[in-house]
């Protein structure tokens, strides 16, 4: 039997260690924001959570297209792992976002495009996970989930634009012409994004491997039952 790769565990470990180092950047290197004070530090956790959640959902889209084209079960399991990771990270992004909103805007929730898009994505992919938890024949489930995975990601830009027309008060941190952030803050944020990325990749890989092993065990069990 093949031994399991240690790469995912190493990724999780290195992500955790680098994120621990980022704490120094967050609390000592990056300046404290003038109006929000220490609460602004939430941003350094919130941003990577939101970005990697979005990337997870993009992976669901890519995996879904790949499954429809090649019918590879591995692509379907990648979608499952990415959707679970994305829902977890976007849920945490929503929690940190509401904490930020309370301090910055005086409300727990506001219909800002980015917050709204994150919430709607969370709803869509939580529904997608409910769908994955059902018990139709495996191939049919994979097909249905692939179709929903594609429709869900195509909807994201529309949700964002419609929520922006609805109303917006979110700060543009990277897109703003003047930068929106001090250079030290920007460097710290990028450090957090990279370290979270390592952690995310390890988590995704581990979950995908779990699903691969479960699938193999299910196949062996059904083969044993047939004999």
């Amino acid at each position: 039997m093949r031994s399991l790769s240690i790469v995912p565990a190493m990724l999780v470990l290195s992500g955790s260690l680098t994120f621990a180092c980022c704490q120094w950047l967050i609390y000592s290197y990056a300046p404290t924001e003038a109006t929000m004070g220490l609460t602004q530090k939430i941003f350094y956790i919130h941003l990577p959570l939101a970005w990697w959640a979005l990337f997870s959902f993009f992976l669901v889209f890519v995996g879904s297209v790949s499954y429809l084209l090649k019918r590879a079960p591995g692509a379907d399991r990648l979608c499952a792992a990415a959707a679970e990771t994305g829902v977890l990270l976007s849920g945490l992004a929503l929690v940190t976002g509401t904490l930020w909103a309370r301090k910055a805007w005086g409300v727990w929730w506001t219909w800002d495009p980015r917050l709204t898009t994150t919430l709607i994505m969370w709803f869509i992919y939580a529904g997608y996970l409910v769908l994955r938890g059902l018990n139709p024949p495996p191939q049919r489930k994979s097909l249905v989930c692939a179709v929903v995975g594609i429709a869900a990601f195509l909807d994201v830009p529309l949700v964002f634009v419609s929520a922006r027309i609805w109303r917006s008060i979110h700060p543009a941190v990277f897109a703003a012409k003047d930068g929106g952030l001090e250079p030290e803050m920007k460097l710290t944020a990028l450090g957090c994004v990279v370290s979270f990325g390592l952690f995310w990749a390890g988590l995704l890989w581990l979950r995908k491997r779990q699903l691969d092993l479960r699938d193999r065990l299910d196949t062996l069990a059904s083969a044993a039952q047939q004999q």
Partner: protein
Amino acid sequence: MLRLTLAVARKDLSLTLWRGNGLMQALLLGLLIFFVFSLSQEVGENLSPQSAAAVFWLSSTFCQVLIFNQLYALEEVNNSRLGLLLSPAPIPAVWLGKAIAGFILLLFAQLLFLPAAVVFLGQSLHGPLPPAVAILLLADTGMCALGSLLGALAQGQAARESLLSIVLFPLLTPLLLAGIGVGAQIFGNPSPNGPGAWMGIACAFDAIFLATGLLLFSFIYAGEE
């Protein structure tokens, strides 16, 4: 393909309207939502135009879920789905046919919901009607394109309605915002931006999900349970 599409739509409309409960369940649910929301008003008080528009689209969305469940349940008995799959119609014709049937049924239901909004929620029509009719048709087109695509995913599943609702509702958010935005203007809450931006969103949604439905429906509408 168009002839077969219309045949599927005609079959679904005949079976829905002239057999069993027809559209009654969907209509009653929609009207009940209006009634329940009317309880939120004090005596002599009216719901704000935006809230009334939100209730209108909420009723429409629930109604749409029931309509598409009903349309796809038509083929659940006696393995009729296999018959439909074996017919010479291309599979996307089934999607389009059901979308057209759903569109007509939803529009019919909304013709009843509009007076219900006036009566139960104390609204009156203020704004220009052409943009209101346009956004109604555009939003219904998108809702039916997506509803017809995802209606098939719940086939053979228990608790079809709740399953379809949790998958469909969040995906419909852009259309619901567009519908509520323009609906509020029609009910007397004018916006400086007018309905133009919402029309654009609704058109983009329709284009994306009409294409998606046409391309992807064949993958999920299959013979197995």
